């Protein structure tokens, strides 16, 4: 007869059985300390801290070899995590790029094509999805999408600013804290936003959290706090040979808000980066103090790069490397092999949303066009994208034509609307993109394949 539960309980156990049972329980208890995930049906979801700066060039960090900028906190993230050497934005402009980070989609999909076309309330952000998955969420900082300030679904804390069309101010920037306009006299924006971020992550909670910290720094007017002003006033600059003091003013450049000479503004830009780095340091330190670092994914990146005289340009928008290439650092202790590595795989702003969802164990919506980089964190040799689409849409009154382009690991081909001729660059031999090879024998040999790939990318094919 099969033993029933009642009969098993009532049955007396022998000493041998008791010792065996207790020994098994002890072994299980010791094993649970070493391998907790084995004993729990659901892996603990990581906290997420996503830090997005503005206009921070990929090479303006000390860990990228900048001649004088000191960014010890960003460097620490890179040394304890991984730094992607080939990270890019699919549209080099604030609003479209920021929308791409939030939605995992290209500008032509989410609809924020420039700084004029409005954000659609129907766009689904990664915060909304994470909220449904049980996260506490916060969006703190620069929203800067055209149109009215949205009621962001799935966001518990929405702290932002609308002054100056959403660009904000470095000093005394009034904030809109969960819908309430709040003056902030005496505050420096980067520090003020970090204070709110610290408060959010320090709360006692049962759920994991996602902090989306979106800085105004280091956008123009490039204003550092008083204690850092003049930090780099005497350093020797290494500006490109084609740069000159007034490329900030000529040929419509003055519309970028670059009121001043190039070298003066560049020094201020570098000082503003140092201020940003210091605030990142405060955030990382607080995570350490709270004992949250080991279970927190930190990603640091920016919405686009910036020219400082390359091609005689300032600002961004154009498809050259200084504009489209961005710093991209991921730290997730215990989940990244060989921390401190550099990863060469090409990653994009549209990859961030699928990546964070993947790390959180949440299904990635099919309409996200980016790819999760989670597999790359531990194995950069896996099959990965070979090319991607760059696009830019007219943003009046800035004199930059609409364009589509393809970037592979070796070549960049751009087609412009209007009168500007197409360009093709061999990035391996001409990394500064000085020589358009489109009419050379080498260029004509490469062109058909690149045009075919570009057509495929425009149709949504992943290459």
């Amino acid at each position, binding site marked *: 007869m099969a033993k029933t539960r009642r009969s098993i309980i009532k049955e007396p156990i022998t000493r041998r059985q008791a010792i065996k049972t207790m020994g098994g329980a002890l072994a299980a208890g010791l094993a649970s300390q070493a391998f907790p995930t084995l004993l729990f049906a659901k892996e603990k979801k990581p906290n997420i801290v996503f830090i997005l700066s503005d206009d921070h060039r990929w090479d303006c960090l000390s860990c990228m070899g900048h001649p004088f900028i000191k960014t010890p906190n960003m460097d620490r993230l890179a040394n304890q995590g991984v730094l992607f050497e080939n990270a890019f934005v699919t549209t080099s402009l604030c609003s479209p790029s920021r929308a791409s980070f939030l939605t995992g989609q290209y500008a032509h999909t989410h609809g924020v094509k420039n700084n004029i076309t409005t954000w659609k309330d129907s766009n689904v952000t990664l915060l909304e999805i994470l909220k449904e998955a049980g996260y506490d969420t916060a969006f703190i900082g620069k929203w800067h999408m055209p149109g009215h300030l949205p009621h962001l679904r799935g966001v518990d804390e929405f702290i932002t600013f609308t002054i100056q*069309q959403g660009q904000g101010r470095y000093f005394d920037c009034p904030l809109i804290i969960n819908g309430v306009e709040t003056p902030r006299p005496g505050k420096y924006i980067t520090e003020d936003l970090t204070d709110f971020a610290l408060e959010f992550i320090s709360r006692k909670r049962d759920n994991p959290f996602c902090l989306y910290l979106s800085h105004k720094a280091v956008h123009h007017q490039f204003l550092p706090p008083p204690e850092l002003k003049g930090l780099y006033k005497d350093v020797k600059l290494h500006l490109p040979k084609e740069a000159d*003091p007034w490329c900030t003013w000529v040929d419509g450049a003055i519309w970028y808000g670059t009121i001043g000479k190039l070298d003066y503004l560049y020094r201020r830009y570098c000082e503003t980066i140092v201020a940003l780095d210091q605030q990142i340091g405060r955030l990382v330190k607080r995570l350490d103090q709270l004992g949250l670092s080991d279970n927190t994914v930190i990603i640091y990146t920016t919405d686009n790069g910036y020219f400082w005289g390359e091609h005689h340009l300032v600002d961004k928008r154009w498809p050259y490397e200084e504009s489209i290439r961005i710093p991209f650092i991921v730290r997730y202790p215990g989940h990244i092999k060989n921390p401190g590595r550099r990863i060469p795989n090409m990653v994009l702003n549209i990859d961030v949303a699928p990546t964070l969802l993947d790390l959180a164990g949440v299904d990635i919506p099919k309409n996200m066009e980016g790819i999760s980089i989670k597999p790359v964190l531990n194995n950069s040799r896996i099959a990965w994208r070979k090319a991607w689409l760059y696009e830019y849409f007219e943003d009046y009154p800035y004199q930059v034509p609409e364009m589509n382009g393809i970037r592979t690991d070796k070549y960049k081909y751009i087609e412009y609307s209007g009168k500007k001729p197409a360009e093709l660059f061999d990035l391996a031999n001409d990394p500064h993109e000085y020589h358009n090879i489109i009419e050379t024998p080498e260029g004509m040999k490469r062109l058909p394949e690149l045009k075919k790939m570009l057509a495929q990318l425009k149709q949504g094919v992943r290459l």
Partner: protein
Amino acid sequence: MNERSDYIIKASFAKRFVYPTSIVLITWIASTLVYWNSAKVGSASLHYFLADASGIVMFLSIGFGSLLIYPMAYFRGASATERIVASLVTPIIWIIKEEIRVSLYFTLGKTLYYALNQLHVMVILGSLGLMGACEIICRIIFKGRTGEQVKVVTALPISAMVISLIAFYCSLIWEGGVHWFYFFVRVYRAIFL
């Protein structure tokens, strides 16, 4: 100004209009050519110096050329209309040059609308304001040298100066000109989108 005054003799059209205008116009053209070709000199420090200096001359000739033209024309007997037109030649040619440049990027309508941007407006209004100041200074000098009873301060030059200062404040000083810029973009959206 008393055109029959012995102190000011009406010079030929070339001397009172063409020469003063040409000085500033040629200065602008020459400085522009130097600026855009300064990188060809080969030496980084010389390039920097030439670009810096020629850039300053370029901007001054566009924005402040009237400070030279207006008094020259005044004391060579040019009429008020001639003085104003002569002073506006260089800024207007610069604006036309800019319009041609941006026509590579925009449709005809957007190109024409671009002419109304704050920089163009400021260059014209700024020049008119400087002309107003020059008119008053020239009257003071004329009065001092001839003893003639001339009304130095009148409504037109004062109005020009006041309007110019307001435009300067709104286009460049008030939060770096962003309010004017965003208004310009709002009107663009209303017209073209």
